[in-house]
C-alpha cells in the first residue's frame, strides 16, 4: 500500500493535475499530568483536474501518522462506517483515508456532483441542527474542525436553479454513521445522557450494531430549497435518513448466574424537516436554523419501557447574532435549544436542553496574528468548553498555533464527562 501511495504521489508530479498539500503536526499535552495525549503528523492533499470546460475531478487523500495516541490507539473497529468509507490502517500508527473523491459537472444550468463528498446544511457554527447530512467522527470529541471530523459520504448531489430558487437533491446510498470512540479511547462517551450507565452487580454485554444494509431501501434522501428574498437568505430542508447515532436499546434479564443487561445498538429512520434564515442589518447579521423530527429516541428508566428507550418528537433550533462593528473583530453569540415532546420524567435528559456559545475572533498586523476564543456552555448540566487559540501566519507557507481546551462541569454532561482531558496543543502547518 505504501508503494501504491508513493507511486500515486509520484505520478502527480508528472501530470497536469493541480495539486496542493497541507502538512500538519499537532502535539496535544494533557493539562493535568503533562503527558502526551497525541502526537501526530497529517498530510492532506488536494488534487484537481479539469475535464473539458464544465467538469472537474477532485481527490482529497489524507495520511495520518501517530507517534503517541490516546485518542484511538491501534486500529479502530470502524463498525459505524461502510466498507467503502473506512480508513485503511497500514499498521497501528499510520492510516490512510480517501477523504473526498468526486466528479463535478454542469448539465445545462444544473450542477451534478457524484462521489465522496461533504454537504453542509444550516447556518450555525459549532452547534448542529441541520448539519446532519454527513456523520461525524468523534475521535477528538468536538475539538476537531468540522471540515476534518465530518465523514464524507458517497452520494449523488444535484443542484437545479429555477429562477430565483435553487433545489438541491441528495441520494446517499453510503451507510456510514457517527464514528464514536471505542472503550479505552480518550473520548469514549460515558455520559448517562447518551449511554446507559453501568450498574453494580449487572453484567453488561454490548451487541454489534444492527446496520442497515439494503442498497436502495436504506439509502438517505435529502431535499433543500434555497432563495434570497429582499436581503434574506432562506432555505427549507427535508432529510429522510437514518439518525447517525444508534439507539441503545437494552434488555435486562436474570439467570442462574445473576443479572445481565444486553445493549442492542440499532439505527432508526427519521424524517427531519428544517428551515434556515440569514439577514444582515448594519454591523449585525442574524441567522438561525430550525429542525423538527418525530423520531427521536431518548434513554428512559420508565418502568413501562421494556427496552430502556422512548420515542419522542424533537424541535431544535439555533439562533445566532454576528457583530462586526469592531475593527478586524468578529463576535458571535448563539443560543441552541432542543424541546422534546411529553414529560421528561424518567428520561436521561431534560425536556428543554439549552446550550449557548460565544465566539470572539480578532486579527492583528495584517492578519498575520489571529486570536480566537470560544465558549460553549450547557445550562442544564452546567458544563461546557472553553477554547483559546493563537495563530501566527508569517508567510503563505507556515502557520504556527497554540491552543488550549478546557472542559468543565458535571460529569453527567456532554462536556463535563471529559473534564480530566483538558489539553494544550502546539500546532504547525506547512502548505506547499
Amino acid at each position: 500500500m505504501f508503494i501504491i501511495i508513493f507511486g500515486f504521489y509520484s505520478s502527480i508530479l508528472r501530470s497536469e493535475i493541480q495539486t496542493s498539500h497541507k502538512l500538519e503536526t499537532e502535539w496535544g499535552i494533557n493539562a493535568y499530568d503533562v503527558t502526551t495525549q497525541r502526537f501526530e503528523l497529517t498530510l492532506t492533499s488536494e488534487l484537481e483536474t479539469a475535464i473539458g470546460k464544465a467538469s472537474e475531478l477532485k481527490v482529497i487523500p489524507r495520511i495520518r501518522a501517530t507517534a503517541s495516541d490516546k485518542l484511538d490507539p491501534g486500529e479502530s473497529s470502524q463498525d459505524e462506517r461502510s466498507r467503502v468509507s473506512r480508513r485503511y490502517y497500514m499498521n497501528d500508527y499510520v492510516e490512510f483515508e480517501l477523504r473526498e473523491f468526486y466528479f463535478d459537472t454542469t448539465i445545462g444550468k444544473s450542477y451534478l456532483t457524484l462521489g465522496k463528498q461533504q454537504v453542509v446544511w444550516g447556518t450555525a457554527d459549532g452547534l448542529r441542527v441541520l448539519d446532519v447530512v454527513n456523520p461525524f467522527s468523534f475521535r477528538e470529541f468536538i475539538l476537531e474542525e468540522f471540515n476534518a471530523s465530518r465523514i464524507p459520504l458517497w452520494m449523488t448531489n444535484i443542484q437545479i436553479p429555477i429562477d430565483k430558487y435553487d433545489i438541491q437533491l441528495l441520494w446517499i446510498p453510503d451507510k456510514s454513521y457517527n464514528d464514536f470512540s471505542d472503550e479505552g479511547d480518550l473520548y469514549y462517551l460515558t455520559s448517562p445522557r447518551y449511554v446507559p450507565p453501568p450498574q453494580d452487580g449487572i453484567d453488561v454485554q454490548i451487541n454489534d450494531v444492527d446496520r442497515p444494509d439494503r442498497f436502495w431501501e436504506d439509502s438517505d434522501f435529502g431535499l433543500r430549497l434555497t432563495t434570497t428574498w429582499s436581503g434574506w437568505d432562506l432555505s427549507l430542508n427535508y432529510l429522510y435518513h437514518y439518525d447517525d447515532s444508534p439507539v441503545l436499546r437494552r434488555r435486562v434479564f436474570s439467570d442462574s448466574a445473576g443479572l445481565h443487561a444486553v445493549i442492542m445498538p440499532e439505527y432508526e429512520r427519521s424524517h427531519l424537516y428544517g428551515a434556515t434564515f440569514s439577514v444582515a442589518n448594519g454591523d449585525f447579521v442574524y441567522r438561525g436554523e430550525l429542525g423538527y423530527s418525530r423520531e427521536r429516541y431518548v434513554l428512559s428508566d420508565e418502568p413501562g419501557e421494556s427496552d430502556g428507550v422512548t420515542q419522542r418528537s424533537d424541535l431544535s433550533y439555533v439562533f445566532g447574532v454576528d457583530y462586526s462593528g469592531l475593527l478586524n473583530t468578529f463576535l458571535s453569540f448563539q443560543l441552541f435549544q432542543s424541546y422534546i415532546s411529553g414529560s421528561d420524567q424518567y428520561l436521561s435528559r431534560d425536556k428543554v436542553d439549552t446550550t449557548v456559545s460565544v465566539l470572539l475572533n480578532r486579527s492583528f498586523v495584517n492578519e498575520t496574528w489571529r486570536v480566537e476564543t470560544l465558549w460553549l456552555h450547557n445550562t442544564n448540566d452546567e458544563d461546557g468548553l472553553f477554547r483559546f487559540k493563537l495563530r501566527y501566519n508569517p508567510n503563505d507557507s507556515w502557520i504556527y498555533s497554540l491552543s488550549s481546551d478546557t472542559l468543565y462541569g458535571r460529569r453527567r454532561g456532554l462536556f463535563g464527562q471529559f473534564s480530566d482531558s483538558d489539553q494544550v496543543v502546539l500546532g504547525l502547518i506547512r502548505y506547499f
Partner: protein
Amino acid sequence: MVATTNLKIYDRRKSKVKSNYIIALVSLLACTSLLAKEMSAVEIMLANEASRKGKTEMSSMLMTLTNSKGQSRERDVLLRIDDRNIKARKSYLEFLSPRDIKGTRMLTVEKENIDIEDDRWLYLPALKKVRRISASNKADSFMGTDFSFEDFEVADGVVGVKNHNYKILREETIDDALGVRKKCWVIEAIPVTEKQIHESENSKRIIWVDQEHYAAVQEHYFDKAGKLFKIRTSTDVRESPTADGGTVWRPMRIEMTTLKTGHKTTLIMRDFKVNEYIDPNMFTRRYVEKGR
C-alpha cells in the same frame, strides 16, 4: 516728414499689433482658465467614475503584501465586476492562491438606494458553506491587505456625490509613483451623510485626479482624528481596448501604504478586459457556493 509720418504709422501699427497680441493673450488665458474652472469638483469626480467604470471588467490581480521589513506574501485573485447598472456595482472575487486561502470567494451586490444594505456573501472552503456577512464593516481590512472593504468600492461618482462634499483645492503637477508627470486637479472629499460618516474609516480624502485621463493617480486618506494614515497611488495608466470597440485608460498598478506600520499592498492587474460578456449568474449566491 513722410519718414516721420511713416514711422508714426509704423509705431501705431506696431502698437496696434502689440495691443492685439496682448488682447489675444489675455483672451487665451481667460479661455484656458474658463475651461479649467468649467468642470466643477462634482463633475470631475463623475468623470473619474466614468473612467473607472465600463459595463464589465475582468482581471486577475497579483496582490503583494509587504511589511516594513520587506517580507512579502502574494495572492492571486480573480476579479469580475458588473457595472451595467452604474448605481449598483456587482463584484465577484476569488482567491486562487496561496493554498491557505485558495477557494475563498466573495460576492458584493450594491443597492441603488444608499440607505439599503448591500448584499455580501463569503464562502470559506474550511466551512464548506456560504455565509452572509455584514456590508457595513467597510473599515475592516480586506483579507489582511492595506485596502479596506471601502477602498474596493467606487466611493466617488453617481452614488458618491450623494454622500460626499467635493471641493477643488488647487491644480498641481506631480510625479506619479513611476515618475511620470501628471497634471492634476486636487480634490477634497468629505463624507456628509450620517451613514457614510458612521461606516467610513475616513474623515477626509484628498484625491489627485489626472486631467488627461481622469484617473485618481494619488489619494491621501485621513482618519477620524484628521490624521493622514494611508496613501494610495495608481500608476502605469494604459490604454485598453474594450470588447465593444472603445478605449479606456486604466491604471494597471495600484499601491496602498499604511503609514503607521509601513506595510503596503500592491495590486497589479493582469489579463485586463473591459466590456466583455460576463454571465450574470456569476453574481449570485449560488455561484459563490459552487465557484462556477
